[in-house]
C-alpha cells in the first residue's frame, strides 16, 4: 500500500496547512485572498502553465470554494484539464466541474464535447470519469447529448465491468431527468438481463436502474421478476465463502439482496407463476432460518448486515400480505428483537411490527407482544424508540385490548416527552372513541386527557367529546355529573372549563335534582372560573349562562347581575360586550316560551368521520397505518360517515355556539336569528396541514382582482390584465403569521396544454413573517380551452408541510374584446350563426330573486360588450365580443333572457366555433 498522504501536489498541502494554522477568520480570509491573487496572476500571465500547475491551482480553487468562498474564475482552466491525457489532471478537472457547476450553467455546454471525446476513448478510465461526471451533474443537456451513447455502453460485450457499473447508474440519473431517453423494444430485455451478469458489482448497479424503470413501466419490465428471484436465491443459499469479494462479515452480498428484495416490492404479487412464487418463498424461509442460526461473528457488522436483509424480506412479506405463515413467522422474529440489547434492532422491530399489526393475518400475533411494547413505551432511553412503541400500541389496538392500552397510554402521558404529547393525546382520543362500547368510559378518558395534558388537548379533541355527548342521550346525565365533579378541583384546565360550560349549559338540568349540584351551585361553580379564563372561554360561558337562564328561571336575577357587570357589559372586548348586552336584553324581553325556543337544546350533529383522526393522519402522513381492521372488528358505529370537510370554514357563519359543525338548517326562524348572534368569532379553526382547498373561482369570472385564497397562514391575492390573446397575472403571497413560511413552491397543472400556455416566473422560496411577495405569470390563449389551470402551492410552516390547491382565475372569457354594434348588424350576425354547430343554450334557475341591476353589473365584468336598446324586450341582455386566441378570433354573441315569474334564465350563446359557444355558455350558466 503506497502512502497516499502527502503525495501529489506539494503546493496544495502547504496552502492547506497555512489555512489550518490561521488563528482567526480574518487571517484565513487574508491568506485566501493572497492565494486567489496569486492564482489569478498565474492564469493571466504570459507564461503558459503546464498541466501539473493548472491542476494544482484548480485544486486550490476548489479547496477555497469548499471552505465556503465564492469562486468566479478558473472554470476555463478546469475545462482545459479535461482534455489532458493524464488521469490525475483529468480527474481534478472533472471534480472541479462536478462540484462547482449547477445544472443550468453555460459551462456544461463547453464540456459536452470533452465528455463526448472521453466517452469514445479506448481508455476505460477516461470513459469512467466521463460517466461519473454525467452521473454527478445529470443535466437535461447531457441527457440529450448522451442519451443514445450510454445505453450502448451498458449492454455492449466489449465494455469493462467497472464502466458498465457507472453506465448503469449514469443512465439512471439521466432517466430521472428525462424519462424518454430509455430506449424500449429489444433494449428492455437486454437491460433486464443485466441481473444475470456474472459480475456482482454490475448487478448491484443495474438493480437500481431496473428498479427505477419498473416504477415507471411495471408491465414492460415484468420479466425482471424471474431473474431477480433466481439471483436472490443463489445469494441466500450461498455459503459465505462462495461469494468471496461480496461477502461482508460472513453475510453474502447483503446490499444486493436488499436491492433485489426491494425490486420485488414493485409487484404484488411478485409473480403468478407457481415456480417463481415457490422459489421466492424458499428464499424468504432461508432468510428466516439463517436469522435463527448462531451468529458467525460477534461483530455488530455481522448482525446488522444479516438483519438488513431480514428486515427487507419482512417488508416484502408485509407488502405482499398474503402468506399467513410468513407473516406470523415475521412477527415472531420481530418479537425476539423487541428485547434485543441493540437499540437499533428494537427500534426497527417496533417500526416493522406497526405494519404487521395492520395485516389481518398477523394482527393477533402482534398483540401477543403487548406487554413488552408497553414496557418499551415506558422505559426506552431514546425518545424515537418510545415514539415507535406508541405508534405500535396505537396500531395493535382493537376492541379487546383498547381499555388496557388506553389506560397505559394515559398513565404514560403524565411523564411523556413534550415532543410526543400532542400526538399521544390525539391517539388516545381516537382509540377511546373508536373502541368505546360504553360511552361513559369514553367521557372519562377524554376528561382524564384534559386533566393530565390539558395544554396538549387541541380544539378538535374537546369539540369531539361535545359532539358525542350531544348525539348520545344515554351519556348526557353522566357527562354532566362528571364535568361538574371535575370542575370542583381547585385548579382545572381551561379546556375543562370549556367542556364543562358547554355540557352544563345543555344538560345541567339532568343533575339539578341533587342539592349538591343545584342550579345555583352549578352557576356559581362555573362563574368562579370565569375570571381566570381567556376571552374566548368567557364568551362561551356567557352563552352557557343564558342557556342556564332558560333551564332554571330561578337564577335569572343572579345571571342578569353578571351580564350587567361593568366587566362584561362594558368589556373592552367587543365580543364579550355584545354577548353580555344581547343576552341581557334577551333575558329581559323574551317570554319563557320564546326563550325556550331560542335556547333549545342543540340538535344532533351530523355523523361523520372523527375530525381528530383527520388531524392525526395529516400530522403523520405515512406513519399512521390505515385502518385496515375497520372491516373486521365490529365498529362502535359512531364514526360511520365518510370524510368531513373540515376545510373552508373561514366564512360559513358557524351557527352553533362553538362552531362545532354546521347544524341542520331546520331551526325555526327565531332560532336562526339568535344562532347568528352566537356565531362564534373566537373559535378560530385550526389549520390542518396539507389542506386541499377549492377557492370560489366563479366569482373571478367577473373580475380580475381579489383574494384568491386565504387561510390562517397565507393569503394569495391576484391582479391580472389581459390584452388580445395575452395575459399577465400577478400573484401576491402574504404571510399572515409571526414566522417565516419556507420552501414555497407553486406548481401549475392543466390539461389543455396545447390550447393554453402559462409561464410562471420563479419566486423566492421564503416568505418572511408578515411579508408579501409577488410572482408574475404570463398566459397565452392558443385556442379556446375549458380547463382553468390548477395551482398547487406547497410550503413548510413550523416544520409541517402544507399544500393548498386552487384554480387560477384564467377562463376563456378573459380573452374577450368587447365589440360595439347596432341592432341591425347584431341580428344579422345572430341569424348567420344559427347553425346547430354554433349555438349553445342553457336554461337555469335564478340563484335568488332576479335582480336586473346586479345581473347587469356582473355581465359588465365578464368581458363582452353589453348592447343596450337592441333587444325588443328591455329586460333581456345582449352582448357581443371577440375571443382572441393565437389560432383565430372567435366572434361571439350572447343573449340572456330573465323570466321573473318562473325565476329562470335562458342563456343563448352563438359563435363561429361550437366549442367556444359551449364554454362561454357553461361559464355563465348558474351565475345569476
Amino acid at each position: 500500500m503506497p502512502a497516499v498522504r502527502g503525495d501529489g501536489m506539494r503546493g496544495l498541502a502547504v496552502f492547506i496547512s497555512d489555512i489550518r494554522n490561521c488563528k482567526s477568520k480574518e487571517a484565513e480570509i487574508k491568506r485566501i485572498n493572497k492565494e486567489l491573487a496569486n492564482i489569478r496572476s498565474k492564469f493571466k500571465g504570459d507564461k503558459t502553465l503546464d498541466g501539473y500547475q493548472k491542476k494544482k491551482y484548480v485544486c486550490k480553487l476548489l479547496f477555497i470554494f469548499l471552505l465556503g468562498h465564492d469562486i468566479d474564475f478558473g472554470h476555463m482552466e478546469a475545462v482545459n484539464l479535461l482534455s489532458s491525457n493524464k488521469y490525475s489532471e483529468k480527474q481534478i478537472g472533472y471534480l472541479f466541474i462536478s462540484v462547482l457547476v449547477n445544472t443550468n450553467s453555460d459551462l456544461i455546454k463547453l464540456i459536452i464535447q470533452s465528455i463526448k471525446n472521453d466517452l469514445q476513448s479506448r481508455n476505460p478510465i477516461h470513459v469512467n470519469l466521463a460517466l461519473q461526471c454525467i452521473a454527478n451533474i445529470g443535466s437535461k443537456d447531457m441527457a440529450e447529448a448522451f442519451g443514445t451513447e450510454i445505453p450502448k455502453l451498458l449492454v455492449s460485450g466489449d465494455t469493462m465491468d467497472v464502466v458498465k457499473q457507472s453506465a448503469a447508474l449514469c443512465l439512471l440519473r439521466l432517466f430521472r431527468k428525462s424519462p424518454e431517453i430509455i430506449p424500449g423494444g429489444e433494449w428492455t430485455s437486454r437491460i433486464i438481463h443485466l441481473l444475470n451478469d456474472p459480475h456482482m458489482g454490475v448487478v448491484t448497479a443495474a438493480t437500481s436502474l431496473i428498479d427505477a424503470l419498473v416504477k415507471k413501466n411495471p408491465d414492460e419490465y415484468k420479466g425482471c421478476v424471474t431473474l431477480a428471484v433466481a439471483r436472490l436465491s443463489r445469494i441466500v443459499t450461498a455459503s459465505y465463502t462462495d461469494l468471496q469479494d461480496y461477502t461482508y462479515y460472513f453475510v453474502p452480498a447483503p446490499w444486493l439482496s436488499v436491492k433485489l428484495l426491494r425490486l420485488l416490492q414493485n409487484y404484488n404479487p411478485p409473480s403468478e407463476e407457481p415456480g417463481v412464487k415457490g422459489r421466492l418463498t424458499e428464499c424468504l424461509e432461508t432468510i428466516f432460518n439463517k436469522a435463527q442460526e448462531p451468529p458467525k461473528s460477534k461483530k455488530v457488522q455481522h448482525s446488522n448486515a444479516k438483519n438488513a436483509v431480514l428486515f427487507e424480506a419482512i417488508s416484502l412479506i408485509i407488502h405482499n400480505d398474503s402468506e399467513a405463515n410468513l407473516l406470523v413467522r415475521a412477527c415472531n422474529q420481530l418479537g425476539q428483537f423487541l428485547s434485543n440489547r441493540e437499540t437499533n434492532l428494537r427500534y426497527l422491530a417496533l417500526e416493522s411490527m406497526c405494519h404487521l399489526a395492520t395485516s389481518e393475518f398477523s394482527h393477533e400475533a402482534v398483540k401477543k407482544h403487548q406487554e413488552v411494547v408497553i414496557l418499551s413505551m415506558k422505559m426506552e432511553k431514546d425518545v424515537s424508540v418510545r415514539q415507535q412503541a406508541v405508534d405500535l400500541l396505537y396500531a395493535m389496538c382493537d376492541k379487546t385490548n383498547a381499555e388496557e392500552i388506553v389506560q397505559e397510554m394515559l398513565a404514560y402521558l403524565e411523564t411523556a416527552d413534550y415532543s410526543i404529547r400532542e400526538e399521544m393525546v390525539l391517539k388516545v382520543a381516537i382509540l377511546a372513541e373508536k373502541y368505546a362500547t360504553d360511552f361513559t368510559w369514553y367521557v372519562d378518558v377524554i376528561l382524564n386527557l384534559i386533566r393530565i395534558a390539558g395544554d396538549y388537548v387541541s380544539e378538535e379533541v374537546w369539540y369531539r367529546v361535545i359532539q358525542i355527548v350531544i348525539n348520545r342521550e344515554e351519556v348526557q346525565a353522566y357527562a354532566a355529573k362528571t364535568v361538574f365533579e371535575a370542575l370542583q378541583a381547585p385548579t382545572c384546565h381551561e379546556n375543562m372549563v370549556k367542556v364543562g360550560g358547554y355540557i352544563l349549559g345543555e344538560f345541567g338540568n339532568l343533575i339539578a335534582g341533587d342539592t349538591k349540584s343545584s342550579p345555583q351551585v352549578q352557576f356559581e361553580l362555573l362563574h368562579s372560573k370565569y375570571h381566570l379564563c381567556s376571552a374566548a372561554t368567557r364568551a362561551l360561558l356567557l352563552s352557557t349562562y343564558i342557556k342556564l337562564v332558560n333551564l332554571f328561571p330561578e337564577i335569572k336575577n343572579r345571571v342578569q347581575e353578571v351580564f350587567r357587570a361593568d366587566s362584561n357589559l362594558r368589556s373592552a372586548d367587543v365580543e364579550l360586550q355584545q354577548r353580555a348586552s344581547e343576552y341581557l336584553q334577551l333575558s329581559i324581553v323574551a317570554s319563557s316560551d320564546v326563550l325556550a325556543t331560542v335556547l333549545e337544546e342543540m340538535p344532533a350533529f351530523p355523523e361523520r368521520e372523527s375530525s381528530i383522526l383527520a388531524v392525526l393522519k395529516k400530522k403523520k402522513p405515512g406513519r399512521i397505518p390505515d385502518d385496515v381492521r375497520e372491516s373486521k372488528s365490529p365498529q362502535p358505529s359512531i364514526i360511520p360517515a365518510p370524510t368531513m370537510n373540515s376545510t373552508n370554514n373561514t366564512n360559513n357563519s358557524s351557527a352553533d355556539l362553538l362552531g362545532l359543525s354546521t347544524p341542520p338548517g331546520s331551526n325555526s326562524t327565531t332560532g336562526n336569528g339568535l344562532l347568528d348572534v352566537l356565531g362564534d368569532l373566537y373559535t378560530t379553526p385550526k389549520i390542518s396541514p396539507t389542506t386541499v382547498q377549492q377557492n370560489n373561482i366563479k366569482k373571478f369570472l367577473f373580475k380580475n382582482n381579489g383574494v384568491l385564497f386565504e387561510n390562517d397562514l397565507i393569503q394569495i391575492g391576484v391582479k391580472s390584465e389581459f390584452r388580445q390573446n395575452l395575459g399577465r397575472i400577478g400573484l401576491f403571497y402574504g404571510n399572515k403569521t409571526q414566522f417565516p413560511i419556507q420552501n414555497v413552491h407553486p406548481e401549475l397543472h392543466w390539461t389543455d396544454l396545447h390550447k393554453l400556455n402559462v409561464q410562471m416566473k420563479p419566486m423566492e422560496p421564503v416568505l418572511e413573517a408578515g411579508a408579501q411577495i409577488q410572482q408574475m405569470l404570463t398566459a397565452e390563449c392558443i385556442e379556446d380551452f375549458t380547463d382553468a389551470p390548477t395551482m398547487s402551492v406547497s410550503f413548510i410552516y413550523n416544520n409541517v408541510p402544507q399544500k393548498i390547491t386552487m384554480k387560477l382565475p384564467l377562463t376563456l372569457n378573459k380573452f374577450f374584446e368587447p365589440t360595439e354594434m347596432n341592432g341591425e348588424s347584431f341580428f344579422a350576425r345572430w341569424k348567420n350563426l344559427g347553425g346547430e354547430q354554433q349555438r349553445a343554450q342553457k336554461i337555469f334557475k335564478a340563484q335568488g330573486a332576479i335582480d336586473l341591476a346586479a345581473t347587469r353589473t356582473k355581465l359588465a365584468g365578464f368581458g363582452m360588450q353589453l348592447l343596450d336598446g337592441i333587444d325588443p324586450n328591455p329586460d333581456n341582455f345582449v352582448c357581443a365580443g371577440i375571443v382572441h386566441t393565437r389560432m383565430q378570433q372567435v366572434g361571439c354573441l350572447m343573449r340572456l333572457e330573465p323570466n321573473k315569474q318562473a325565476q329562470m334564465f335562458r342563456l343563448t350563446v352563438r359563435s363561429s366555433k361550437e366549442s367556444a359557444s359551449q364554454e362561454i355558455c357553461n361559464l355563465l350558466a348558474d351565475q345569476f
Partner: protein
Amino acid sequence: MTTKAWKTEGSPMPDIVIIPSFITIRFILIQNRAGKTRLAKWYMNFDDDEKQKLIEEVHAVVTVRDAKHTNFVEFRNFKIVYRRYAGLYFCICVDVNDNNLCYLEAIHNFVEVLNEYFHNVCELDLVFNFFKVYTVVDEMFLAGEIRETSQTKVLKQLLMLNSLE
C-alpha cells in the same frame, strides 16, 4: 424552481426539497464534532444556501444524540442514518422507508475502505486529500445509489488509479 409540472397530479406528499423521484441517497456528509464539513456529496440539486442550511441542521440533529440512541433520526421528510467514528460523524440522508441497516453498514463499508486506502485514516487525511475522497465516494456510490460494495474491488481500482500519473 419548476415552471411547469405536467403530470404530477396524484403524486404523494410534496417533498420538502424539490423532487426527483425514486432517488435513494439524497446526500452524504462527513462532519466533525465542531461542525466542520469534511465531505459533502449531494445527489440532488440544492442551491448553496440550502446546502449550508442542511449541513447545519444535520449537525444540530446528530451531535445531540447519545451513544445509546439509535443510529437513525428523522429529519424533515427524510431520515439520517449516521455513525460516529472518533470525532467524525458520517451521515447519509435517505427516504423514511429506506432500509436503515443497509445504509448503516454502507457507511461502515465506506469507512473501512478509507481506512485501508489511507492506512489508518484520520480526519487530516480527509482534509489534505479531499480530492481523493471524492474518488472513493464515486467508486462506491453513484447517482445516489450504492455502486460497488466489494472492498477488494474498490481498493484494487483505487490503487490502480493512484498509480497513474
